[in-house]
């Protein structure tokens, strides 16, 4: 397995700037034309617990995280205890020598089992249970240790800027750790300085002091460790525009583009960031792609040049989903974003939307369940629930994105499906995607098309003022007129209803309405192009066929490349639209596959179950993980290799993660 990349990790106490450091590292790398993928791991906690961020950079395409750490940057002791042994041979650890005497038993946030395992290592090696001992353990494994006296360097920088307050200077610890890392890698100092200036562009004085801190760290590292670290990182010239984005943000901006103008939410991890982004960007420019074709007064044109999205923080998720459905009834593209516990509360509302054929989009950021589960950790455990959420039978479309690029275009599709087929759409974006940061080529807005389905601006066929909202049509989709449309009125009810929307318990009407609603799944199955519903990667015939969904995509693709180099051919069927399920296509691929391997971030391999049910193809080999940490490319590589060599149990459970 040959990697053409570099994996850097930073850890620290939650709330102490770990995120900021990682963002800084990633942006400085990105500014040098490198591709970046960042994974954030944190506890359900505000301050005090350990969090870490792993950033993988490469000149080539990068789609996943790896378990290997090439360089670990630290500014406190817990990160050293937790991650020092993850650093590879010939890798590097940067630390503050002031930490040397800190003892393992002085860190209350380290779990008892982790502590016990480390103590066992210390006594085996005959080392003291402190930072010094920990680093000696790493050194004996071939890791290079780089002490950097941050405070001494910071004091010099402070003196130059007339800043003597240690607490103020310590705000630059993050900058120091990042700069020291780049210096070891002989990365272009000016790119790093520019990145830090950009980060603090609203505070020029702070920006200059930080740029000087970068310079001081470079000077120190060059003088002390010049050329001692084997790996170099150099900027690359690329000819494309790139963004650095996070999953939540990608979905939020796609919602604005898609025309979503009403968003509701109740605070929940890891979904709220999306709504907060929308709130912060609730005034929307409408001038871009519309050369307002109709002549209108300057006043009207000016009014139409800006739009707004109403973002409402609700009292609970029941209100969030029912408000959004209200928005849908009023003819506005509406959505709500949540995670497992909130989605559980939305079940009854979804049934109402199904019954009344109301377009609404629920963005479901799946995290570790059940109950409160692992609130800040990753899992794909809600697929079966999403497919069946709510009592009774109604069409729930379920769309799951595999990476940030898909999340962007799928967000638009979710609204299109929802309006064209007049039914709720659940868009699953898992935690690993929500909290992944990555460089991406600029999205192509020209690829985005809005399809609102049969949407009336005026009612012309009302009888006695009454409009048949649920009119019998040949394909089951009736013309939809928002509340407030002139020319007639109609009714909606959660009860079974007639064409006008009045309550009806008539058995003939019931059959008709059930057929009408449920028939939309078959209609969509016929109409939605297969390219929007699945991805198929790799050769047509392969030793192994992987079946998976969601954010495992990147790691699978990376593992496939490594395996190809070793002569193991793998192809990969990624299901994106899980209901309506692409039965015909999946059956065709899977029934001729030599060996199908289902890879999922849940206990019971839920997509495998759905696929078996739909295609009747037996799928025996599973690779699953449910410890809350996303699968790495190495884990998938190792698993597929084991499977290929016939050494794997039929249910292989992956365990890596910190």
């Amino acid at each position, binding site marked *: 397995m040959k990697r053409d990349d570099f994996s850097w990790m930073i850890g620290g106490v939650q709330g102490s700037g770990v995120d900021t450091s990682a963002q800084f590292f990633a942006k400085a790398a990105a500014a040098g034309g490198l591709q970046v993928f960042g994974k954030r791991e944190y506890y359900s906690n505000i301050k005090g617990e350990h969090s870490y961020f792993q950033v993988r950079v490469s000149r080539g395409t990068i789609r996943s995280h790896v378990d290997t750490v090439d360089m670990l940057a630290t500014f406190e002791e817990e990160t050293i205890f937790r991650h020092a042994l993850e650093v590879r041979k010939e890798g590097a650890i940067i630390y503050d020598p002031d930490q040397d005497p800190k003892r393992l038993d002085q860190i209350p946030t380290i779990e008892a089992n982790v502590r016990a395992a480390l103590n066992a290592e210390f006594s085996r090696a005959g080392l003291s249970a402190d930072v010094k001992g920990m680093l000696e353990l790493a050194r004996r494994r071939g890791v290079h240790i780089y002490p950097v006296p941050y405070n001494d360097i910071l004091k010099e920088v402070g003196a130059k800027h007339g800043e003597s307050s240690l607490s103020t200077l310590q705000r630059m610890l993050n900058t120091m750790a990042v700069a020291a890392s780049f210096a070891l890698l002989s990365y272009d100092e000016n790119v790093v300085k520019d990145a830090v200036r950009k980060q603090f562009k609203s505070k020029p004085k702070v920006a200059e002091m930080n740029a000087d801190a970068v310079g001081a760290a470079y000077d120190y590292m060059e003088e002390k460790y010049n050329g001692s670290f084997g790996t170099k990182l150099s900027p690359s010239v690329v000819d494309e525009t790139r963004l650095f984005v996070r999953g939540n943000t990608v979905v939020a*901006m796609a919602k604005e583009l898609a025309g979503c103008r009403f968003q509701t939410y109740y605070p929940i991890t890891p979904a709220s960031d999306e709504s907060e982004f929308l709130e912060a960007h609730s005034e929307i420019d409408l001038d871009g*792609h519309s050369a307002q074709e109709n002549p209108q007064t300057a006043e009207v044109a000016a009014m139409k040049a800006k739009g707004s999205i109403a973002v409402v923080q609700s009292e609970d998720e029941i209100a969030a989903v029912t408000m959004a459905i209200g928005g849908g009834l009023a003819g506005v593209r509406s959505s709500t974003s949540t995670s497992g516990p909130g989605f559980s509360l939305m079940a009854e509302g979804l049934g109402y939307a199904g019954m009344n054929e109301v377009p609404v989009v629920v963005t479901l950021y799946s995290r570790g369940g059940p109950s409160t589960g692992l609130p800040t950790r990753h899992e794909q455990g809600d697929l079966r629930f999403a497919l069946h959420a709510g009592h009774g039978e109604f069409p729930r479309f379920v769309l799951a994105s595999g990476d940030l690029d898909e999340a962007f275009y799928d967000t638009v599709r979710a609204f299109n499906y929802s309006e064209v087929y007049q039914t709720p759409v659940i868009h699953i974006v898992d935690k690993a995607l929500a909290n992944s940061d990555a460089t991406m080529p600029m999205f192509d807005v020209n690829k985005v098309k809005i399809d609102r389905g049969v949407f009336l601006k005026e009612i012309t066929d009302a009888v006695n003022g009454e409009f048949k909202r649920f009119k019998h049509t040949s394909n089951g989709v009736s013309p939809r007129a928002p509340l407030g449309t002139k020319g007639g009125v109609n*009714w909606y009810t959660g009860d079974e209803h007639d064409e006008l929307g009045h309550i009806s318990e008539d058995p003939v009407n019931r059959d008709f309405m059930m057929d009408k609603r449920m028939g939309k799944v078959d209609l969509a199955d016929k109409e939605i192009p297969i390219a929007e519903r699945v991805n198929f990667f790799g050769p047509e015939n392969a030793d192994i066929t992987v079946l998976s969904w969601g954010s495992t995509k990147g790691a699978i693709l990376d593992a496939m490349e490594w395996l190809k180099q070793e002569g193991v051919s793998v192809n990969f069927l990624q299901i994106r639209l899980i209901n309506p399920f692409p039965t015909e296509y999946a059956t065709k691929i899977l029934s001729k596959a030599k060996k199908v391997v289902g890879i999922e971030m849940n206990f019971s391999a839920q997509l495998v179950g759905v696929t078996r049910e739909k295609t009747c193809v037996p799928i025996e080999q599973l690779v699953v993980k449910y410890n809350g940490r996303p699968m790495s490319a190495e884990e998938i590589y190792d698993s597929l290799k084991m499977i290929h060599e016939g050494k794997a149990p039929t249910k292989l459970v992956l365990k890596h993660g910190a």
Partner: protein
Amino acid sequence: MALKLSDLKTSAHNDWCPGCGDFGILNAVQMALAEMSADPSNTVVVSGVGCSSKVPHFIKTYGVHTLHGRAVPFATGIKLANPNLNVVVEGGDGDGMGIGAGHFVNSGRRNIDMLYIIHDNEVYGLTKGQASPTLGLGKKTKSLTSPNINQSINPIMLAVASGYTWVARGYSYDVRHLKDLIVKGINHKGYAFLDVLQPCPTYNDIQTKEYWAGEGNLDAAGKPKPRTYKLEETGYDGVVRSDDEVEMEKKVQQAVLKSFEFGDRTPIGVFYQNEFIPTYEERLAGRSPSYKTNPPAVQDIARPDGTPLANIDKIFEDLRVF
């Protein structure tokens, strides 16, 4: 164009029990809408689940009969998506103050410009007469196996405490007075709450039509004394007339105190009115000025060829690293 009462009637079969207080409320709503010449296609009646929540089917405006307890959040979504609509919410006391209590309270914090009418009959009718949140402790209506062991909610006090800016009570058999209250409630700029006392002839054998008419409540001359009286006839003034906080506080306190009167002398009319609190729509416009000039429901989102109208280049620029 003047609207006739008959223009607001539908052909849907009404299956309420004979003598149900819901009829009076339905009539009053239709009379109010006719008097205001409300455009039916610009009016939406939103309800929850229960006997009273069937009401939208009998009114020829847009009608949205929603889920049990959820009329208010559905209505919130409708009104905020299209602030030009005239939205009236109706539902029972169990719907609004039992299963929907969280929404009852939290919607008060928003002050959305709509009217919420609660049909208050102290029982769950459609499920055959269980105690509702407004039935008093120790009372035993006829289908209860034993007296109620829950205390009752005071809807007026709860509404005032939650931030509703117009709070009133009506009586379903005083249809004209009720109609006037509904007109006022709709015209109020902000979130209006109207609690309507309503007999349930089938399950509530205590708060009957006769009870409210004064049965067993005799005056000195031995004549039945009605148990309701009109606030406006006693010189009570619940209207806040300036944005002076001291005055607002006084009017709130006065309404809360008044809300304790219940039983033999039960006030109906306007307890509290305050138009100096910004509406939620105004607050949204404070965050995004276009919400007022180009609200969600009137905004175009795409050109005829499906090209999005939104331009997110500024967001892209903020996120650009290369």
